[in-house]
């Protein structure tokens, strides 16, 4: 999977100060699931995203603890209150030490 870690974020194009805005984010990632051999789970360091950190204006506003039962190429959407223009950042951490980031600029129309 060549593009592991590519992130896309979408927020609405016209935002007014104080709006509660829905953000959508997707990251390319295999979200490896547990293999079974003869009915028993195989032990290995499965490769999946286990933490998502959302920061806005440099402050952390949400953190998700995720598991292998989130779909491959994980998608998340969430609300946040657009108080000031600035950067929304979503950081993905995976079990193999991977760290992937995507950003969107909050601009008021």
């Amino acid at each position, binding site marked *: 999977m060549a*593009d592991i870690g590519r992130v*896309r974020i*979408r927020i609405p194009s016209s935002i007014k100060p104080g709006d509660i805005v829905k953000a959508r984010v*997707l990251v*390319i990632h295999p979200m490896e699931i547990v293999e079974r051999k003869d009915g028993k789970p195989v032990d290995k360091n499965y490769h999946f995203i286990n933490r998502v950190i959302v920061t806005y204006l440099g402050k952390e506003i949400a953190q998700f603890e995720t598991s292998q039962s989130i*779909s491959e*190429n994980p*998608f998340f959407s969430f609300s946040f209150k657009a108080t000031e223009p600035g950067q929304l950042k979503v950081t993905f951490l995976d079990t193999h030490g991977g760290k992937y980031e995507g950003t969107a600029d909050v601009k008021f129309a």
Partner: protein
Amino acid sequence: MAARAWRGLVPGASIIVAALLAAGCAQGDTKMVAPGLPPSPWISRAVPEARGDVKTLPDGKREAVRYRGWTKQDFGGFRTYAYDDPRPEPPPGKIAMPAGAGDPKKGRSLFLNRNLGPCTGCHLIQGNDVWPAGNVGPDLSTYGNRNLPDEYTFNLIYDPRHVFPNTLMPPWGTTGALKPDDIVHIVAFLKTQKGPLPPEPNPERNPVTRPKPVGFGDNLDPTNNPAVLRAESAEALWARKGPAGKACADCHAGGPRAAMKGVAARYPQYVAGYRRVMAIEDFLTVHSPEATGLPLLAEGADNLDLTMLVKMASNGMPVTLDLARPETAAALARGKLSFYKRVGQRAHACADCHTTAGAKGADKFLGGRLLANVEAGLTRHFPTWRTSQADVWDMRKRMQWCMTPLGMNMLAADAVEYAEIELYLTAFDVGKPMNVPGIRH
């Protein structure tokens, strides 16, 4: 496979030969081939798992080479729509019903068995555990009330074509999909399906009252459809120099979106330089190595991603089909014949599931899947993201997938036969806007 002329090996070949004779061409002329077909069978330029190869193991058994996770079973005994496959449809078979009482419990278990049918793919029966049954065939929940003779039911399942010559139902016994003893158990089970029916616990259980699938949302939203990101990664491929020192960008200036605008809306088309019908995927397998030195093997990720990128440049534009050339018209006629040809162990034609005329399956449920109607235009959203596969599938892989559970060996992804079926299907997309990549289950 030794190179052979297509001459005389095409379905309806007698019609084509007659036309050629009428045009004053001699049948014995080795250069004469059916219009629209290349002079020799096409050599596949697909990745190894997409070529439709069958290999012989050291112990002499034959094993099909297919995509990872697909069955390796060889279905060589059943006919396909390869143009050099002259086998007729197996004639309806009949045997005496074996003696002995069938076991209704075994019969029910066989009826639900996904490795065999399942019969519930087409037929609803009683039971809250029945999920999901389809309605391509009649509801059998009260079959037992009809009190039909056991032999009649046995013969019907063994080979329904005796009673219904144009049936969609596979000839389970004739082609060996079900053993005679299996059918005896199923007959015993069907006799237990009697009314009055219990009240329906959920409307979804019965395919007639089941809500239709809602799909997966906006296919062009990159936060919804990973295929959009895959296509974007082909922009780097477009600009990169291949082994011959050239890039696509060197001849096609302005970037892929500008340079390729409108191109894909005209495909598939007959490409005179290669003397065959080609979709974008096929064309890339020959054009890319010639122009840049980079082989873009069919069903390789690069070929799929670049195909998406090229097609996206025509998004919103209406699909067109130019039938002025005799080669194109002949190819479309062959594609239509293939579409209606009954093939494989299940003796299904594409038309059986994907058209509505004559009580065929389109717009009904096959198991849990609503069968798409070809008249809606099915080609313009391919390649598509498949959520169940977490991967991009083009039209060819979709066809190869269909062939496999129907009990036949798939053809190479870039086979001319597939291209001509795709050409026929494209006729239903004419005038409708391109919308690539799609997103489906």
